[in-house]
C-alpha cells in the first residue's frame, strides 16, 4: 500500500460508505472504486474491511441490500441508503465539518 495514501481513521469508513451510497445504490466493489476515485486516490479502502462494514451498517438499519442485475447482466448485491441512513449521514457530515474546522483552526494557530 502506497505510503502517500492516508490510512482510514476509525469510524470514517462508515461515513464514506454512507456518502457513496447517498448518490446511488452500488455493489461492494463499486463502492471501493468510487471512494478511491472521488478522493483522487488519497483514501483507499482496504477491501477486507469494507465488507464487514457493509454488514454492520446493514444490521444497524442504515443501509439495505438486494440482489439485482448489474451492467453486463450479472447478479450483484446492491446496497442502498435507508431513510435512517440518510439522517445518520447528515449528522455525521455535520460532525465531520465541525471537527475539520476545529482541526483547521488549531493547526493554523500553531503555524
Amino acid at each position, binding site marked *: 500500500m502506497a505510503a502517500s495514501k492516508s490510512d482510514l481513521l476509525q469510524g470514517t469508513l462508515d461515513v464514506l460508505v454512507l456518502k457513496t451510497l447517498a448518490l446511488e445504490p452500488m455493489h461492494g*466493489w463499486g463502492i471501493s472504486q468510487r471512494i478511491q476515485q472521488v478522493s483522487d486516490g488519497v483514501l483507499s479502502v482496504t*477491501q*477486507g474491511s469494507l*465488507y*464487514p462494514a457493509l*454488514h454492520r451498517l446493514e444490521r444497524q438499519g442504515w443501509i439495505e*441490500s438486494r440482489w439485482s442485475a448489474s451492467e453486463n447482466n450479472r*447478479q450483484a*448485491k446492491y446496497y442502498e441508503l435507508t431513510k435512517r441512513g440518510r439522517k445518520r449521514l447528515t449528522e455525521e457530515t455535520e460532525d465531520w465539518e465541525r471537527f475539520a474546522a476545529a482541526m483547521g483552526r488549531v493547526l493554523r494557530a500553531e503555524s
Partner: protein
Amino acid sequence: MNNSWKNFFLPRRAERELDAEMRDHLDRQIAENVRRGMTPDEARRQAMISLGGIEQVKQDCRDERPARLLADLWRDVRHSVRGLRRRPGFAAVAVITMALGIGANTAVFSVVYGVLMRPLPFANGRRLIVLQQTAPKAGLHDVPFSVKELNDYLTQSRTLEGIAEHHSMSFLLLGGEEPLRVQTGVVSANFFSLFGVQPVAGRTFTDSDASHDAPGVLIATDKFWKEHLGGDPKAIGRVFQMSGRSHTLIGILPPIPQYPIRDDVYMPVSSCPTRSSAAFIGDRTARMMTAFGLLKPGVTLEEARTDAAVIAARLEKTYPEVYKPQYGYGSYVNLFRDELSVRAKANMAPLLAAAGFVLLIACASVANLMLARVTRQERELSIRAALGATRGRLMRQLLTESMILSLAGGLLGLQLAPPAISGLTLLAEQFSARTGEIRIDLPVLLFTLLISVATGVLFGLAPAVGLRRDPNETLKEGAGRSTETAGRQRMRKILVVAQLAFSFVLLAGAGLAIRSLWKLLTVDGGYRAEKVLVLRFSASSARYKGPQAFLTLNQRVLDSVHQLPGVRSAAVSLNYPLNPNAIAADDGFNRREFLIQDRPLAKGQLAPQVEFSVASPEYLDTVGIPLVKGRWFTEQDRGESLQVAAINESMAKHRWPGEDPLGRRVSFDEGKTWLTVAGIIGDVKEMGLDRPVPDEIYVPMKQNQFGGNNLLVRTATDPDSMARAITGAVHQAGADIAIDRVRSLAQVREESVASPRLTAILLGIFALLALLITAVGLGGVLALGVSQRRQELGIRLALGASHKQLVRMVLFQGLRLAALGIAIGLPCSLALTRLVAALLYDTPPNDLLTLSCVALLLGMVAAAACFVPARQATRIDPLVALRAE
C-alpha cells in the same frame, strides 16, 4: 424482512450469499486488473491480496451478524458432545450423579407441589374456609356443629357468602354384588355449588333433593365409581338400598380431595335419619357436623376470623347454660386449602431439605469432576487461548459442556422420579387428602428444567477457578501432564469437604429418624399384638332394629367364631389398640365427661373426661392386657345385674391417687345411673405408640346399648391365614353383614407407625445416595492427586519408601478430609436437626449414640473410598514413573 433477521433464520442461505458476494467482488477486481494489463494469473493473485484473505473477511462479516451467537452455541454444543463422547466414563458418572440429585428433587417437589401448592381443583378454592368451634379449656379444638349453631353462624355472619355442612356416616349399601359398608358424606344441598365442583356425569344436589319427602339420591366419588361401579357412565340411574330406603345414583364426582374424611358416596341431609329428625334439629347440643364457608369477595381471612369470634362471643353470652364459661368457647377459621394439608408442611420439610442437600452434594461432586477434567485438558485450552480464543469464549465452552451434562442429568432424573414419587406419595397420604393431585406436569417440568440449568451453571463455573490467564505458562510446562494450580487444588478439597459435611448432616437426620423409629417399634404398647385378627362388621340398621337386636347379633358372631378350630378367644369391642380411627381423632376417640360419686363439682369446675369403651368378656385375654386388680367382666355382667366398669391404671392414678378405686362409683348421665368400678387393667397406648396413655374406662358389652362392632380373635397360628375362615363365620352369623378392615393387630401396629417409618426410609435413601456420591467424589479427588504425583511418589519409592507407606499416606489424606467434613458437619447437623425434633419420638436431636454412629460410618466409607487411589499408588513402578517425563 430485514436481511439480518433473514440471516438469523436462514444461516445456510446467508452463507451462500456471502460466497456469491465475495466471488462477484473478486471477478470484478480481476477484470479491472486485466484491463490494467496484468496477466490473468497475476490479476487473480493481486485481487486476492487486495481483498486480504477471503476466509478472514467472511468471518469478519459473520461476526457482524446477530446469528453469530446461535452458530457459536451450536458449535460449542457439537464440540462438547464430541469431547464427552471421547470420555464416556466421565460423562456417565456426571450424568448419573446429576440424575440422582435432580430426580430426588423432582420427586419431592412434585409431591410438595401437588399437596401444598397446587391450586385447589374447586372453582371457589381460594375463598373456601373451614369453620370450627373450640373449647380450649376443655381440651377440645374441633367441636362439631349442631343444626342450630350452623344457622346462627349463617345468619349472623357478615363475611361469609354461604355455609355448607358435612358429616360422615357409615351405611350399608345394598344392591351391588355384595353388601358394602360405604363411608357416606351427608351434605347440605349447597355443598357442591359452594365448593364449585362440577360433576363429570349427571348432576349434583339441588334444593329439591333436600326437602323431607324428596326421593333418595346419591352421588358417587370418582374412586367409588371406578372401584365398585366399574367406571361405567351408565351407572347413573342405578338404584341402591341404604338404611331401608331406595337411593338413585344421580351424579359422579371428579377426583377431588376428600375432607375431613375420605367418603365413598354423598347424600343430602334429608336422607340421614339422625340428621333429619326433629329432636336432633331442635337440640342445640346435638353436634355432628363440619362447616365450610365461602368468603365474600374481597374479605380477608383475618376479617372472617374476627367476625366468627364476635358471633361465638355473642352465643356464649346468649346461652350460658350451653356454652359454659369454664369451657372457654370460641371459634376457629382457616383456609380450606391450608387445612387440607395441615400436617404436611412439618413432615415434608425434612425431605425437601434432604433432597436439596443431595443436589448440592451432586453439584459439588460433578464440579470436582469438571475441575479434574479441566486439569487434564489444560493444554488443549491453553492452545486454544494462544490461538486467540478469549477467556470468555473458553468459559462459554465449559458452561456449554456442564449445561449438556446437567440437562442430560435432568432428563434421566425425570425417569428416576416416578418410583421415588410413589414412595413419597405413601408418606404424603398419611397427612394430606390431596395426594390424588400429585403428578409430573408443567410446573414440575419447569422446576426440573430450572434446577437443571441452575446446577449446570453452578458446577460449570467451578472449573473457571484457576483457569490461567496466561496460556504460556501451561505451554512452557513439560510435554507430559500439567500440574494443577494451587487455587484449583484448594477448590477441589473444599468441594470434597463440603460434600462430606453435607453427607454428615443428611446421615445424622436419617440416623435420628431411624433411631426414633426403632424406639417406636420396640416400645411396649401394653398389650400383645401377635396372633390377633381384627375386623369391623356392620349390620344394616334397617334389618337389626334396636340395641337388643345388635347385642344378639354380636353374641351370635362370637358363638360362630368360637366354633372354628384354632380360635383361642374372641371378643367384640368399641375400640382396640391403635385403631386408626382413634389415632386420627384429635380430640379423643370417644371421650366423655363423667361424675364421681360423693365428689360434686364446684361451680364453674370442668367435669373430668375419660376415653369410654365397651368390650365383651374375652377382650382382655384376646388383646393380652394384664388385669392389675379386682376383676374383669364375665358373662354374668348383663343388663339386669349390677352395672360395673373397669378402669386403666392411668385413670386410677389420676382420679383416686393413694386410694383404692374398687367399689367407687361413676356416672356418665349426670347421676341418673351409676357404674361400680370392679377392676383395674394395665395401661395401653391406644392413641398411638408415641402418644401418652389416655385415661380409660370399659363397660361390659351387655350393659351398653352401643356394644361395639370390632371383632378381635386370638388365634393359635398365623392370624392372616385364619382371615377367610373368620369372615366366613361372621357371615354365617347373620345376613347382610358388611365386613371390612380385616387385618392382624400386628399389622395395625405397623400401620400406626407408617409415617415415621416412611420418613426414616426416605431420609435413609437420600442419605445413602449422598454417601455414595460423596464416596465416589472423595475417591476421585485422591486418585487425581496420586496420578499427578506419580513422579514424586516414584522418587520416594526409589529412595526407599515402601508401598505400605504410600498407602498409609493416601489413607491419611482421605481420613483427614473426612475428619474435616465431620468437624464441619457436626455443628451444622446440630443446628438443622432441631427442625425435625418435633417428628422424633424419645430421641433428642443431639443423641450421642446416633451422631457417633454416623461419624463412624462416614469415616469407614471415607476409608473405603481411599482403596482405589491407594491401590493405584501401590502400582507405581519407580522406573516407569521417572521415565515418564
